[in-house]
């Protein structure tokens, strides 16, 4: 079996005991085939043959995707290959990250398998409201592609109520009202910012909906694109107040263009012992083909359970690019579950000196992926 077939096989039938072996094979495959990654590893003094554990695989910063193509030479032009871009930044389009996915079928397998576990554990198909453009309108967006795959897999009917430029909250409201009238459970997918726009519209219009039991929503992106960010607990509360969606059915996704796998809130709906309450302090669950560690930003070593560091992923589904990715997000891992604090957590007040983001907006000010 090729390395790609092995990864797909793992996604369909995860065997935790073989993760480590497969991860090291994937790493060696990437070291051989991806020239910038090989140079990085060599710069770190790493001999791939001597790496004995996935925690010792050199992780690239997610910003690396802004500067180099982390894929085998010619991968972007391979038949069926897809290229996704991170959202625009204040540095301009030339600094958008670029993730070449030579085998989108692996990305799809990963996305759908974990969506099935985390958002559709009841195996229901239902109407889906997309509050983010789908792939036909925004093919460079990994989120758009994921939403399109989700619709293909789980939707009975659908409405896409967003374009590149705006969210059509009136159309979204009408679609939801129709689902309410039909007593059909509905699934809402989109960015947190789009959800905030919908809430604002419903609130201003004095409209509250009581969607059918089993309705659910997945929001992603957090504070990105919001002037005054709505906190996770408030998202959950608003979904209940304005749409009648139970707290356990409001499931936040953590994902990024640079990764082919995603994490979702653990709630009472998708995880025994998961949160059913209104709290935004939730753990997230990664799929079995992804290993998450928090790394000490000083030493880059994995931290013990419960200690906060830079969230770092080894994603088998990234087999065609680089699997070991270190983010700029802070968080911790506990009993295999992940708490994401984001980039703004824990900031100390500083005296008379400027912080980077005060001087000029920088890359941290990204919009949804």
């Amino acid at each position, binding site marked *: 079996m090729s390395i790609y077939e092995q990864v797909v096989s793992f996604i369909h039938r995860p065997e935790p005991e073989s993760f480590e072996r497969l991860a090291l094979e994937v790493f060696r495959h990437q070291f051989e085939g991806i020239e910038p990654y090989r140079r990085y590893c060599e710069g770190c003094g790493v001999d791939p043959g001597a790496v004995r554990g996935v925690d010792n695989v050199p992780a690239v910063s997610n910003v690396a995707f802004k500067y180099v193509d982390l894929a085998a030479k010619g991968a972007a032009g391979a038949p069926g290959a897809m290229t996704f871009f991170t959202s625009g930044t204040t540095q301009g389009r030339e600094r958008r990250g670029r993730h070449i996915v030579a085998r989108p079928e692996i990305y799809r397998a990963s996305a759908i398998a974990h969506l099935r576990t985390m958002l559709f554990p009841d195996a229901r198909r239902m109407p889906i409201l997309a509050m983010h453009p789908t792939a036909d309108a925004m093919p460079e967006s990994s989120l758009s592609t994921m939403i399109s795959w989700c619709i293909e897999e789980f939707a009975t009917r659908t409405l896409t109520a967003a374009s590149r430029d705006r969210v059509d909250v009136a159309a979204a409201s009408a679609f939801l009202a129709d689902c309410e009238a039909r007593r059909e459970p509905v699934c809402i997918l989109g960015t947190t910012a789009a959800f905030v726009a919908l809430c604002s519209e419903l609130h201003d219009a004095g409209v509250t909906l009581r969607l059918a039991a089993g309705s659910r929503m997945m929001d992603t992106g957090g504070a990105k694109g919001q002037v005054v960010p709505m906190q996770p607990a408030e998202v959950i509360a608003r979904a209940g107040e304005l749409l009648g969606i139970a707290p356990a059915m409001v499931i936040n996704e953590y994902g990024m263009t640079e990764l082919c796998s995603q994490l979702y809130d653990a709630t009472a709906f998708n995880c025994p012992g998961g949160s059913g309450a209104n709290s935004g302090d939730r753990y997230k669950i990664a799929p079995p083909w992804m290993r998450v560690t928090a790394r000490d930003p000083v030493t880059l070593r994995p931290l013990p359970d419960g200690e906060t560091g830079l969230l770092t992923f080894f994603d088998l589904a990234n087999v065609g690019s680089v699997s070991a990715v270190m983010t700029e997000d802070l968080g911790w891992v506990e009993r295999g579950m992940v708490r994401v604090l984001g980039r703004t957590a824990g900031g100390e007040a*500083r*005296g*008379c000196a400027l912080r980077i983001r005060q001087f000029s907006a920088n890359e941290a000010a990204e919009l949804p992926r």
Partner: protein
Amino acid sequence: MTTALAHVDSSRLGGAEIASAVARVRGAAKLEIDANRMAGALAQAFALWRSRDYARRRDALAAIAHSAGYSVAMLENSIDALLKPFTEDALKSMAARVSANGAVDRPKTVGFIAAGNVAGAGIHEIAIALIAGAGVLIKTASAEPVFFAEFARTLAEVDRGAGARIEVLQWNRARTDLTAALIVDCDRVVVYGDDATIESLRNRPNVIGFGSRVSAAVVVPGADASQNERVAQLLARDVALFEQLGCLSLHQVFVVSPADGAAREFAMRMSKALGRLSESMPPARVPLRDAAEIRAVRERARWRAIAGDPVELFEGRELQWTVVLDPRADSFRVSPGFRTVHVTGMRDRIEFRDFFAGVSGQIEAMAVAGDESGELRATIRAMGIPYVCAAGEMQSPPFDWRHGGGRFLDLMVGLR
């Protein structure tokens, strides 16, 4: 050690205690302690504090270093630099200027809201306020409650009357009721802190904010390699003092030279100098968030270099120090601090001037080295940067430094 703070349970502080403290220092300000006597008392206190053998200083710095994760050696050097300008001559000269401008209607009480990241930050304004006859109440930060409390004790020991003009209290910034009381009770309040702090107080007419600023250096390398080496060492020290967290801390070095490779050569010298300083002034324990920011700076530089951009990363073990050579940066690079500095090349003075046209308002100090003709200094002064100095002097601005543009100095002393 015992500090003045040890006797204060800040959770029990209320508006009445703030009002009482302000009334006490106001009352003390009415006593006949003229500017010259206050300058003399301060001169004695500063003389004690400039000595590394002074037990109170030694204990205070040990306590600050322990709580902040700084090395004592770094803090010793930083306080040496900070207090260097507070000589008897400078203090007496200020007293003379105050006396000469006797008609100025000065505030009788000044509150200070101190920053927590740089021990002693604000000492210039506090000394000026005292010499100008004001009673002073200092609210220290939870992160650094020691320095001013201990300095005030020294002043009281040197001259009880002078010491009665200063009180030091500490409360958490979340106690907005106490901060509001300070603002109501004092004639003027000076705020050091992040922009959010100042922004929240900006609408109060008696508040003067020292907003967030950073500092830079410009170097014209000469033919003398040893002189270039010396400049790199001095600037490396400017980076390392106070762990690069103050408004006078050096964030970016501009190397003005038409020669290719001049900036790189200087970056290498800086990195070697920072490496040596890691031994003599061990770096701080870097807080998590700051460590993450330094890591981000490094990774951007690393991957830009791998991509073929003309960027080079020089880095110490773990996060001890970082130098990013960015030969043609298109914007000012603000550092996360903790010995992280950018080095950028500039072809000539015109390019340098144009670069700073948009950001000079956020620059507090500029060190200048190798500017034999004085043209660069003139250019920088024309930009309105408050403190222009030699390499190695960035943390030692003169007593009458026009900090933040000089608004407070003018108010208290009437120099203009």
